[in-house]
């Protein structure tokens, strides 16, 4: 059953038709309710209605810290095991991935369209993200490695276990004549631009950058216009060549752009935090996803991010939803997490 469903999803990735999404989404969510017992129980607890994929209960992404949300048996060999950063609570979420076929199939087209601007000419890539061998639990490292393997001419990694090799990053861009591709998180980029202000040079025309992630408390934080100005000043890249990526460990697919645009197999949603119902376009709420390619995990996910959809269904992120105001003296879950308790 899984193989058949995976084949249908691969066919959808190859030739996406919007009208097929509804049918496939229902098949996927019913598969998950059947093969992932905790999710099946959740569906049951919410009334068991799976007549529409939008009625599939969303799982808060933070529950990946507490529950093994993977339909593969525990002893089944895995293709990957990704961990979240644990920035918010100190505890890391875990996502087991028994098969990366869908991941690899789904990552290409959106990346090529948005980050490479449709140009698949192999280029020299610079990654400020750690190598997959050095951080095998990072889904971002895996993605950069897998994309680089398929699309780059060369891929140079400058994030070492000791930290960012600023000199190596700066040396890489010197004397280059062809367009370059830079893969980075915001915090690593700022660290580089701050640390190498005197040794930066404008990148060759046609160079582009994939920019992802927050600052995770590791660098000074900047609003996007300031960051874009810093990039323009240091590397000569215009805003349109700097492409934001929105992905997370719990998801298989990625959204790109400004605002974020999802590939056909990923639906971006903004829901009312109380009812879980989709909000009309333009209203702010919690960001939720339905990711068809999360076949072995859970497709309907609820994040702690705030956002708004525009009239074309693209997502504008407004940051993290503020935590509830703590009124008392009780030890919070976050404090317990930091202390290494369950």
């Amino acid at each position: 059953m899984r193989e058949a469903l995976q084949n249908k999803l691969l066919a959808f990735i190859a030739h996406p038709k919007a009208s097929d999404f509804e049918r496939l989404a229902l098949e996927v969510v019913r598969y998950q309710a059947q093969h992932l017992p905790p999710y099946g129980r959740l569906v049951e607890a919410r009334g068991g209605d799976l007549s529409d994929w939008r009625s599939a209960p969303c799982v808060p992404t933070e529950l990946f810290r507490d529950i093994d949300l993977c339909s593969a048996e525990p002893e089944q060999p895995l293709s990957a095991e990704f961990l979240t950063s644990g920035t918010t609570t100190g505890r890391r979420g875990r996502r087991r991935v028994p098969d990366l076929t869908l991941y690899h199939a789904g990552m290409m087209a959106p990346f090529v369209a948005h980050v490479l601007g449709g140009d698949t000419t192999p280029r020299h890539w610079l990654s400020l993200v750690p190598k997959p061998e050095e951080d095998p639990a990072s889904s971002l490292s895996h993605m950069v490695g897998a994309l680089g393997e398929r699309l780059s001419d060369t891929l140079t990694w400058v994030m070492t276990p000791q930290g960012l090799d600023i000199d190596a990053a700066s040396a890489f861009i010197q004397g280059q004549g062809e367009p370059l591709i830079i893969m980075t998180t915001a915090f690593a980029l700022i660290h580089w631009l701050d640390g190498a202000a005197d040794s930066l040079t404008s990148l060759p025309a046609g160079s582009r950058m994939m920019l992802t992630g927050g600052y995770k408390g590791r660098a000074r934080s900047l609003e996007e216009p300031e960051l874009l100005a810093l990039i323009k000043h240091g590397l000569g890249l215009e805003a349109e060549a700097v492409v934001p990526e929105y992905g997370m460990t719990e998801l298989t697919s990625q959204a790109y752009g400004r605002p974020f645009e999802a590939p056909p197999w990923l639906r971006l949603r903004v829901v009312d935090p109380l009812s879980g119902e989709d909000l009309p376009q333009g209203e702010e709420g919690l960001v939720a996803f339905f990711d068809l390619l999360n076949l072995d995990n859970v497709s309907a996910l609820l994040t702690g991010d705030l956002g708004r959809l525009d009239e074309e269904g693209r997502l504008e992120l407004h940051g993290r939803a503020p935590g509830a105001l703590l009124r008392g003296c009780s030890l919070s879950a976050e404090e317990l997490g930091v202390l290494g308790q369950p």
Partner: protein
Amino acid sequence: MKLFELSDLDRGPGRSLLQATTAMGFSEAVSRIGLETELRAWLKPGAISAVEGELPSDLRRSRYPQKVLIIAARTLPASTMRATLMARLLGAKVILKPASGQAAIAHAIAAADPEVSVRPFSSGDLTELDAAIAEVDALVVLGSDETIKEIKSRTPDTKAFVAYGHRVSAAWLDSDADAALLALARDLCAWDQAGCLSPQVVWVSSSPEAMLPKLAEALRRVEAELPMALSHDALVARQPALTYAEMMGKALSTESALLCALKSPEFRPSPGYRCLWVLPASEAHLQTIEPYLSTLGISGRLTIPLADHVRRCPIGEMQRPPLTWAHDGLPNLSPMLLPQRRH
């Protein structure tokens, strides 16, 4: 003591205290009962002298603090009140630094006693903090471990330093008798479960799932006296717990509370807002949380010993600590005394 003026919650500073407490989001009934419970502990005959009894009779005046800085970084009004009372029992003047947004609580307390002054400043304002520390000879800090560590690092050794960190509490129930369930419901609803004396989990000797409807029934009766409006914040904070319970056990909601039965006895932190984990009894799992445990409400029998800092009390009394309660295992007055000078 002038602070006793607070005991009339219908006029004067007591009224202001009640209003400031409801402004924190507690219903008037929850605020009133919470404050009255604390004030009753103060006014119980013999309570003050029992606390003072911890001091040696030959204590030299030079060891009494003249001025105490109380930093209420994040705590309930009852804790701020008690810390202030203890400092005033030593005759010290008090500077009260309230948490952000809680200045009204401090002002209400100060209105009852001219020896208490309020010093609101941002927690990041180290200049103000250092100035306040320089002014006093003893500090009492109510807050997170991180806050305590930061303030302690700025406090000279010559000053007394007392800290009460954040803790969790739990309940142990081996009965489904109405009285025990009602008592647990009261412990849960007091201060809307926001206090470190509030139970976050209850370990039960019978089936947790079977316990849910019985406990829900008790809660419905208590909610009538102690209502809590379900705010947006509360629902958002409880959402992951609800989903988790639906996936791994069973959830049952009442008008204000969320009860989550699980098969695993492992302690789980509650998001608050009257969300209680109902777990199968396991003394071994109770022990894992012991270092962070403030109070264990007990109905029935527990065979394991618990560390001295853990307050054991009957269920129903969790939010009613006597004035002599050794908060976090510490005596109430002597930690505020000035360190002995070496000759």
